Every structure is written in C-alpha cells, then in structure tokens.
C-alpha cells in the first residue's frame, strides 16, 4: 500500500523546481521593496459545531511536550471513557492543529504499561521484583530516607533530580531548596533552554527576548538550530503562516530538516561551528553598515569593543570552519539585517554545543545590533498575564539554602552560570554529580529522588549514569511508566498524565499572549499529580509551611493576583494580554549598565568571556587530529521526531509506527564506502561508548557528518556515545552536537 502511495507521490511531484517565489522574496528584501501580503488562508468561520449526544467535552491543554497546545477531550457521557483527544478549533494559539503526540494521547492515558500503584522493590536492585504498597507507605518511606540520609551525610548527600516538566518542576525545586539540599539537577539544565535563558540573563538582564517571537509581523525568520515541526508544533504553524505572508525563512542546520527544506536560504553548517557562523554574520552586518545605529547608541553597551572583536571574523574565515560558502553567509546576513523586522528562533542545537551560552550570546548580539529587540516583527518580550510566575528565584526560594551549603553544590566554583545566581534555577552540574556518586568525592551522595526523568536514557554518557545509579543506597523514581531508570529504584511512584490533572500554564514556550488552563478529564488507577506528591512529601518532611494544602490550592495561589480562582479561569479558558513592543523604553534592561550588554560585565565577573569568541570543538579534525584517525566521522545527536519527546512516547502504537526504528542518518556516499546498506544495522562508537542504530540514507547531511536521534532505550540509546570530560565555559554543557565517532556495519544487538 505504502509502496503504491510512494510511487504515486514521486510521479506526482516530478523533478523540476521553480524557485522564483523564494528568489523574489530574498531579492525584494535586499533591494528594500519587500512587502508582506495577506495570506490566502481560509478565514475561520464561526459555525456551531455539533457534539454527538452521548459525548461531553473537556477543554484542556496538551502537555505531551512544552508547546502546550489547547485541546478538546471528548468523553463518553455514560461510561466516562475518553473517546478522542483533538485540537481546539477555537484556540487563538493553535487554530485547531495538534501534533501526533497530542492526537495519540488516548494511547498514553490508557496505556497497558502504565504504573497504577506505588511499588516497593522486593528482589535485587534492577531485578524487576515488586510489591504493590499504599501511597502512605510509599511517601513515608521516601520521606524517612530523605531525613535519614540528610542526617547521616548532610543535605549535600541528597540528589534531588527531575526531568521534563509536567507542570510541577518549580514546585519540586522549591521543595529541594527548603529542604536545603543543594544538589538539585536535571538532564536538561545545562543542555536545554538554560543556555538560552542564561544568555538572556547576561545580555538583556533577564528579559527573555531571545525566546519570544513576533512571527505574525515579521519579514524574516532566522531559525537557528531548530526544527519546530518535530518539537514545537505551534511555532511551525506560525512559521508557515508567516511564509504565506511572504516572510523570508533562513535556516541554520547541518541537516536538510523539514524546516531547512522550506527555507529560502539554508546554511548547512558543520556541527558545533555555529559560533564561527554567528560571528561572521556580525562581521558582515557591521562592516557593511547594516546596523541600527540609533538603537545601538541608545540601548546597547560595548559596541566599540564588539566592532573591534569581530573584525577578523570574516565570511571567508568562517567558511573554512563551518563549510558554508562565504557568499551565502554574506547574503543571509544581509537579508536578516535588511529585513524591515527580523526574528531569531533558536533551538536545542545551540544549547548543546561546546560553547553553549556564548554561541547563544552571539545570536542575541545579532538581534541587538540590527535593532530587532522589542520591535514589531522582531524578538519581543512576552508580557505577564498577571499570574504568579514559578520561574523566579523568589518562587523557588533559591536563597533558603544557607550560603555555606550552597557552596557545597557540585560544580559551584567551576560552573557559576549554572550553579549560582545568574542561573534561571541554580542547580548542580550533573556529569560531575554522577561522578561524585561513583567516587564518593568530595563527599558521599547515597540517596536520590527522581521526578519525571528517565535518567538512564536522557543523560549523556549513559553507561556512567547507570554505574552511578547502581552506587546509590536508596533511589525513588516518580514516573508514568516503568522506565529503565524506574527499574533501578527502591520505591516507584505512579504519576498521572496531563489528562488526569489541572494546571495553570504560563510560558513563553507555549504562547506569547495567553495563560492557558489545563483541566483534569479522568482518574486512572492510583496515579497522582506530581504537585500533590511533592506537597505530601513536604508535609512528611515538616516543611508544609512553604506549600499549599494541595495542588488545587496551589493553582488558586498562582492565579490569585488576577482575581480569578482556578475554576473561574477554567471557565474563561485562558487569560490574555497582547504583546507590548518597546517595553524596554519604560523599564530599560536589568543589566549592570541598564542597557543590552553586547560586552557582558556579568559574564566577565564570573570569569567568562565578555564577548563571544570562537573556540575549537572539544573533538574535531582540527582540535584532535589523532583521535579523528580512529573516529573519522562527526556525529550530532540532534534529530528529533514529531512522534516523540526525547525519551518519551515509544510505548504508544500510533506514534511508534510513525518512526518505528532508531535511525542513524548518513550520507549514501559515506555509507557505501563503509559497506552500509540503507536500513541496515550499524554500530556507532565513540570515546565514551557505543550504541546501535539503523542506517537511514539522506543526502541532507555532509559526507563527514552523521546524525542520530536521542531518546531510544537500551542498546539504541545514542547518549551512551556522548563523551564527558570537557564542558562549556561557565555553564558546564556537554557537547552533544559535534563529537567524533566511528560507524561500522553490525549485527542486531542481543538484549
């Protein structure tokens, strides 16, 4: 069937392409005649949709990823069973769309592999023998162990870990802080979003300009290391609408991704060399006088230093490092700078490079010197809708930990941008923390409590993480499924899915203009909302004064400044506040100079480069030529799929069939040279370890680059190959986007 469909599709599209539309957009921006047009899209018709008589609808918000799209959950009136989960056609945010993860949510909530009761280990660790216990026994045990180990080894002896948020993260952070446990951590924090947010803290003084986009009014979108189709559906929807209006799309990606395939200009950068590319953009813009001088003069600090700093970073220089043609770099930089308003959207690819915060800084500088900050159609800071933000040091009670204990935090001196006050959430450096668990140095860590993280899969250098987990004396894991990480635990707590809980969602990641209300649609087994689990733990630890009676009271608290209770807000569906342009004119920037710091005084004070500087990758042909003989290919673990979020969603049949296997994307020329057939099994080896994958031929990668998808469990977990030892300045990021590997044909691994 699929063969016939593929044959038809191939015949249908032919092989000749007309690129006039794209060329006209680029040329009109360059000659100053570019105009946005109204899209030809069908106007939303207000018709009353008819719900079948036996159905009820619960409006909610999908939390299958961080995009948080509004949904309608259809239930059978009589049985209470969830029948369908659909997008909400009336949502101003999504206009009805929903990605595969949300659409397959019924297979999440009713998944036969769900954890439905608290479990206690009765066999050997990892043996898989469990006894069902009551919630009281489970929570009492976890609280007792936390107290016991805190008493025995001090608060620094507890590892309080978490993963992808399900709307509770900062509540858990608050618990760890009032428990005065300094070693709070997550797989993501030096690896995902935090480098971008830390950049915003340094450059803009906390205002998250780099993360907020005015797509509806933009003339040019610069998508840097991001493929929203697979991971940020609402943004992909917005980008397509912007394209329909005639906005240019420039994409920086080593792979010809879905987004790159729609680009007017695609810059195929060699992995982990984006800094060179960004610096050469800045060089072109300054040397060709494409800067917004008035904005620079009034609102930025350190321009003269920047100008001097980038003068040798020419496109010709960058071309040698990045592999991107110098003239193409010039063209892209000119289009971005000349567009009436341009908007940068950045992704994980920047966060996970060897110079994470600094390369993010380079892109923020790009937006600043072209005056695209706070401007209509540019990067515009999102206004608060009045509810209480969980993302403040006040909310998480960051300073509740006495200074002398804070200083015990693993990585405190080495990685100040992660562990100290400039971090969005001051936390421990995780690779160093895992090594501490193994070595017992500088002090023993024997007890860990993990919320929502499949640590064995989601951390880099996973074999080391496994070794560390087996060194623990007590491990509790709270999750939806029995993950490989939960299998290592003493106590397993069953968490509910997003369909089983309320939530107040206020995030620049989901929506520029709305606070959204998630509503509970069903109860499954004894699974609980993590917020309630955390509050119950807090009560047992004698810390209830810092919390609320339960999650419902917590949501009321979050909304309290708006004058609405959770119930009232839910009836309204969403709270709204439009974007405010040029907000800085009133408030300035909360940096030491009150301006955008192109030259960062805060970075300098922490011993980091005040201006982003090009440095070589930790492993590459140039920096480690001997190693490159043994490991001759550059690998990035950057592929995501619309069916999955990181290590999640492999258990839903509708999603797994979209991407049934862990693939290694490889250029056919490289593959043939190595004797690797399309679809065949390969072994990927690095200095850290090895993993298996199925070869996937694509001409969308350079011949010296391969790309893997992280998140697959067991022998296919590519994170096993990501090496530690060298980390990004200041923040401690592990470079997962550009290290060396060897790929060979292989037999299927035996589990």
């Amino acid at each position, binding site marked *: 069937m699929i063969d016939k469909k593929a044959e038809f*599709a*191939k*015949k249908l599209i032919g*092989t000749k392409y007309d690129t006039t539309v794209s060329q006209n957009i680029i040329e009109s921006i360059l000659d100053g005649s570019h105009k946005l047009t109204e899209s030809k899209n069908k106007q939303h018709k207000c018709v009353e949709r008819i719900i079948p008589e036996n159905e009820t609808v619960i409006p909610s918000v999908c939390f299958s990823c961080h995009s948080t799209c509004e949904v309608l959950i259809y239930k059978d009136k009589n049985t209470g069973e969830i029948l369908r989960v659909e997008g909400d056609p009336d949502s101003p945010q999504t206009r009805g769309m929903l990605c595969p993860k949300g659409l397959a949510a019924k297979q999440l909530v009713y998944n036969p592999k769900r954890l439905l009761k608290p479990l206690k280990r009765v066999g050997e660790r990892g043996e898989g023998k469990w006894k069902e216990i009551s919630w009281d026994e489970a929570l009492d045990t976890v609280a007792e162990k936390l107290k016991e180990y805190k008493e025995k080894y001090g608060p620094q002896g507890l590892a309080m870990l978490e993963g992808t948020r399900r709307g509770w993260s900062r509540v858990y952070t608050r618990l760890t802080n009032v428990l005065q446990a300094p070693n709070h951590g997550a797989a993501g924090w030096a690896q995902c979003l935090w480098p971008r947010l830390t950049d915003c803290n340094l450059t803009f003084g906390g205002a998250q300009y780099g993360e907020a986009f005015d797509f509806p009014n933009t003339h040019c979108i610069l998508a840097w290391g991001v493929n929203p189709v697979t991971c940020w559906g609402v943004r992909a929807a917005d980008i397509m609408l912007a394209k329909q209006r005639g906005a240019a799309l420039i994409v920086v990606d080593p792979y010809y991704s879905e987004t790159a395939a729609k680009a007017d200009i695609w810059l195929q950068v060699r992995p982990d060399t984006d800094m060179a590319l960004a610096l050469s953009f800045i060089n072109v813009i300054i040397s060709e006088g494409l800067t917004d001088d008035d904005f620079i003069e009034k609102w930025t600090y350190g321009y003269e230093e920047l100008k001097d700093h980038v003068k040798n970073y020419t496109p010709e220089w960058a071309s040698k490092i990045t592999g991107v043609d110098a003239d193409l770099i010039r063209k892209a930089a000119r289009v971005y700078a000349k567009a009436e308003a341009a908007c940068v959207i950045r992704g994980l690819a920047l966060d996970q490079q060897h110079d994470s915060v600094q390369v993010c800084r380079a892109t923020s500088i790009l937006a600043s010197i072209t005056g695209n900050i706070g401007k209509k159609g540019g990067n515009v800071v999102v206004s608060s809708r009045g509810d209480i933000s969980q993302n403040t040091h006040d909310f998480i009670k960051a300073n509740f930990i006495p200074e002398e204990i804070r200083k015990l935090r693993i990585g405190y001196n080495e990685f100040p941008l992660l562990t100290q006050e400039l971090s969005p959430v001051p936390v421990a450096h995780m690779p160093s923390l895992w090594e501490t668990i193994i070595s017992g140095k500088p002090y023993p860590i024997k007890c860990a409590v993990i919320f929502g993280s499949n640590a064995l899969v989601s951390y880099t250098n996973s074999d080391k993480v496994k070794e560390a987990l087996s060194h623990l004396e007590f491990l509790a894991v709270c999750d939806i499924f029995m993950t490989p990480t939960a299998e290592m635990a003493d106590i397993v707590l069953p968490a509910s899915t997003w369909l089983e809980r309320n939530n107040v969602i206020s995030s620049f990641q989901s929506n520029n203009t709305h606070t959204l209300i998630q509503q509970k649609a069903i109860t499954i087994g004894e699974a609980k909302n993590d917020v309630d689990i955390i509050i119950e733990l807090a009560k047992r630890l004698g810390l209830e004064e810092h919390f609320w009676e339960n999650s419902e009271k917590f949501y009321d608290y979050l909304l309290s400044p708006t004058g609405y209770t959770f119930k009232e807000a839910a009836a309204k569906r969403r709270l709204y506040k439009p974007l405010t342009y040029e907000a800085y004119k009133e408030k300035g920037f909360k940096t030491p100079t009150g301006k955008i710091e192109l030259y960062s005084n805060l970075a300098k004070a922490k011993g980091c480069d005040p201006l982003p500087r090009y440095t070589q990758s930790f492993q590459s042909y140039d920096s480690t030529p001997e190693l490159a003989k043994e490991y001759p290919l550059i690998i990035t673990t950057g592929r995501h799929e619309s069916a999955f979020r990181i290590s999640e969603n492999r258990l839903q049949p509708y999603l797994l*069939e979209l991407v049934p296997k862990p693939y290694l994307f490889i250029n056919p020329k490289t593959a043939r040279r190595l004797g690797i057939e399309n679809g065949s099994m390969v072994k990927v080896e690095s200095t850290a370890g090895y993993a298996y994958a199925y070869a996937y031929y694509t001409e969308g990668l350079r011949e010296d680059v391969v790309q893997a998808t992280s998140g697959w469990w067991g022998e296919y977990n590519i994170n096993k190959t990501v090496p530690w030892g060298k980390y990004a300045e200041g923040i401690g990021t592990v470079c997962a986007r550009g290290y060396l590997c060897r790929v060979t044909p292989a037999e299927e691994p035996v589990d």
Partner: protein
Amino acid sequence: MEQQSIYMVIDIDKCWGCKACQVACKQEHGIPEGSGNVDVIKIEQRDEYDNLHCDFVPVLCNHCDSPECMEACPAGAIYRDNEGLVSLNRDLCIACGACVEACPYGCIHITTIDGEEKAMKCDLCKDRRKRNFLPSCEQHCMGKAYETCDKQRMEELTKDRYNYRIGRIVYISRKLVELGKNCS
C-alpha cells in the same frame, strides 16, 4: 437532493511532514496501527542542477473521476455519493480485496474496525463535516496544507499555481513545475 460538490485542495508547499494527519485520521475512524487512509510521503531528491529538495506529499483517496476500485468491487460496496465522492458502504463489503488490488494509489485497504475486517478508505470525514467540523486531517494540519472547499474556491486556489487533479483531491504548488505531468 444533490449536495454541493466537494473538493479538497492540498498545497504541497505547506506540508511540514509532521504526520499529524495520519494519527488524526486513525483516531477519527478507529483504525488500528498498520495501513491508514492517509500517508505522508517524503521525497528527497536532486534536481537537474544538482540542488537538493525535500517535499512531503500527503497521499489519500483521490476520489477519482473514473474510480478503478468501484469498477473492481464485486459487491457494489463502492459508489459515488451525492457530494461526488467515491464512497464505501462497509456493510456491503465482503473483504475480497479486489479494490485494494485495483487502486493505483494504494489508498484503499483492509482493516479491522469494531471487530469487522473490511475495506477502509477516506470519506473526507463525512460525519465530522455533517457536524460542522473540518475533516480531522485538515483541522490538525500544522501547515494548513489541506482545505476542503467548493468548486469556486478550488478554482480560485488553483488559478496561479501548478496544479493537478485526478478526482476530488487537487494538488497545488508554487514550485513543482512538473506537478502531475508524469502521472498518466
């Protein structure tokens, strides 16, 4: 009474390749994992100037002007309905598979729904449309690549585009010069 004829225009330039339509369709019609009514086909290829391109093409029942499945069905289960769509009456289907063989586009399949193993194909979500919903693929599409419409709107959308139709599905693009030219 004859209802107004319906078309679905698919703008290939707007398909992101996210495959939400595949899951949306299966959920809507209760189709289990395996063959579905719609599949998004990825085509990565080089053009005559060696430039790389990658397109995503949603393929679903074309609702052909001359449907070969209808011709092949021995049970009379496939018919043209009052909207001009090629429809399937699952009650009459004997699951012989003749339509599956006959369809040149792989757009009709045998699947088990509610315990009954029978033919299945796209009906542009007739039930949803009756209730003023868009077809599930169209509603959930991340790129808004699908649009069900009447003849006049179809003509407006195809006017200044490369376009191709076999039946009620109309493919359009602003870049695919040979759109449909190699289909015969």
